[in-house]
């Protein structure tokens, strides 16, 4: 179970350095960027949740806050009973994450890449080798397993990165666009893998831009725009809210409505920026 409680994240905007006289009032509050604004939800075990949003909607920021490499401006994330800000390492132990950056170690083979992460997660010996073997089979990586990662294709890189992120069989799996750039066979393998994880009773959340991917796989969909949750529910609920009969139309409707509504909630931003300046991370 992953619980997100009233999570907000404000980035101090990179200031274009202007000479400011000491007695002049500070005027650049509104240039702060609100990446997430008071987001709350609970992800259940045995469920696949899709995170939908346009580029820059806050998906990656949300993911990064969950695995604790960004610190929230306010709010808290719980992974099972571990608070991410208090017990980051225990929380990370429960997580398997495929982040945006999927760089591999080029001088190691695919198997060695996966094994290294397994060892970092505390696995060793037969259990580790079995887990690696299983993932190689599931993802159809037999032919590349003992090749050095130098010169891997995008799909091969992605599969290796995916395998290394879940080699320790985590209770919770976070995937940032896992099927990005994969061919159809590999996409199917990944899809099979997600189902496998779900039937194991694990909690899976992934972000994607591919509507059919999300509608086909997810038990639950969260649509975010401008750092806020627009709708949170199953496919039917999203279609209802977006007044359409397929996910793509519903999503576009929701997002365009949000855009026209949003010329941003200025008061909130100001309050947040002023009140939390000291906590925001740059």
């Amino acid at each position: 179970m992953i619980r997100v409680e009233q999570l907000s994240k404000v980035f101090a905007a990179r200031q274009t350095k202007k000479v400011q006289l000491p007695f002049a009032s500070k005027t650049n509050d509104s240039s702060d960027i609100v990446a997430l604004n008071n987001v709350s939800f609970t992800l259940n075990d045995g469920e696949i949740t899709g995170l939908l949003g346009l580029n820059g909607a806050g998906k990656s920021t949300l993911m990064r806050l969950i695995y604790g490499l960004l610190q929230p401006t306010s709010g808290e994330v719980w992974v099972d009973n571990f608070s991410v800000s208090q017990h980051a390492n225990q929380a990370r132990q429960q997580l398997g994450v495929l982040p945006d950056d999927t760089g591999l170690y080029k001088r190691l083979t695919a198997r060695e890449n996966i094994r290294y992460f397994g060892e970092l997660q505390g696995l060793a010996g037969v259990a580790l080798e079995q887990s690696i073997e299983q993932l190689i089979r599931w993802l159809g990586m037999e032919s590349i397993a003992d090749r050095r990662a130098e010169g891997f294709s995008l799909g091969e890189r992605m599969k290796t990165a995916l395998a290394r992120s879940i080699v320790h069989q985590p209770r919770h799996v976070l995937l940032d666009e896992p099927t990005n750039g994969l061919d159809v066979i590999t996409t199917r393998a990944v899809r099979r893998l997600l189902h496998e994880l779900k039937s194991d009773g694990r909690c899976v959340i992934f972000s994607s831009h591919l509507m059919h991917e999300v509608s086909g796989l997810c038990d639950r969909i969260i649509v975010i725009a401008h750092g806020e949750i627009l709708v949170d529910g199953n496919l039917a609920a999203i279609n209802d809210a977006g007044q359409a009969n397929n996910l793509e139309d519903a999503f576009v409707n929701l997002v365009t409505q949000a855009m026209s509504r949003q010329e941003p909630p200025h008061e909130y931003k100001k309050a947040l920026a002023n009140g939390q300046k000291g906590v925001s991370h740059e």
Partner: protein
Amino acid sequence: MNKLMVVFAKEWRDAWRDKKSLRMMLLMPVYFVTVFVASSLFAIHMSNQSRATNAEPIKLSVVGADELPSLIDWLQERGLKVEPVGDDAYQRVEQAKLDYALIIPKDAAEKFATGESIELALVFDVTNNKLHGSLNFVRQQIWSWNARMGALRLLSRGIAPAIVNPVVIRDLNIASDEKMGFFVMMGLPLILILTAFMSGAGFAADMVAGERERRSLESLLITPVKSSVFIAGKWLNTFLLTLLVLVVEIILLAVAFAYVPFNDLGLRVNVTLLDWVAIFLVLVSVAFMATGLQFLISIFARSFKDAQTYMGLMIFIPMVPLFYTMFNSGAYADWFRWVPILGHQVLIKDLLLGGDVYFLQFAQIWFVSLLSGIGVLWLTAQQLRKPSIVYNAG
């Protein structure tokens, strides 16, 4: 501890597969020792040569020696061995049968008597470097005779000779052959410390900035491993690789010392095996501190290339104290021993030149190195999971 070994083992394997960087790293001691041996041999050659020329008198072949007996007397008085030769001196110099010759014209005696200028010709081949010392000496003696004669003539006419000499230059050359040898020996701590300082830089950059560049850092940091464990495991690799380079360099130097005749430089060079071990111990402490610094620097670099640029600037840190003591070889104060690099260098110099060395001095530099090394590593570990490092912003 377990995780530390995991990180270490992975980086160790990764480093040994990076054949290109390994080759570059091992080239450094070979290159340094070659330069050192070459410059030593050069210094020895120079000192042998100048000793040879000092030992025997400079010969001067003169055409028409009878014309200016007072000049010839003067030259002989100053230690030149004058040998009268025939009129074909010019041709003989041209054919390299003579090194150089002085030609006094036929009308010289007559002109000298009447007080006219006489044109003396000094025939030589400028491309023959061997002659420069002797020629300068000959020329100097002719000039000084010239000045004397001029002064006498002025005096005999009732004019003070100083009137034609508004300034006089006196050369005071303090360099000696021993000094040159000393410079060569002073270069040795520089070479050793630079090796300890820089040889691991490529690997440090790859292990820290390289993670960022190949976009594997984020995945790495999502694992439940402490930042300090990552840094320690990676650092241990760089440290051990640096030690490997130092061992190679010291072996090469020990071999060089066995074969290069340093005693010809007038230096008492007697470096025993124990001295080399002691020097190695000093260098290990330099490496401890320097590899830590490499890590701190590369964590602020966005790419491998970036890190290399910073590392290039880092090389100036040891250069400053090293050059200071190289050009002020007498300079020493007790506080030198507390300054990183400066203290190390003083100790290495003492070990090489046979000064007195005490255990406490080792303890002193090790204390300084451990403190600064652990300090910079701790700082690096503090940085590792910061959003500004992982995401370049945040």
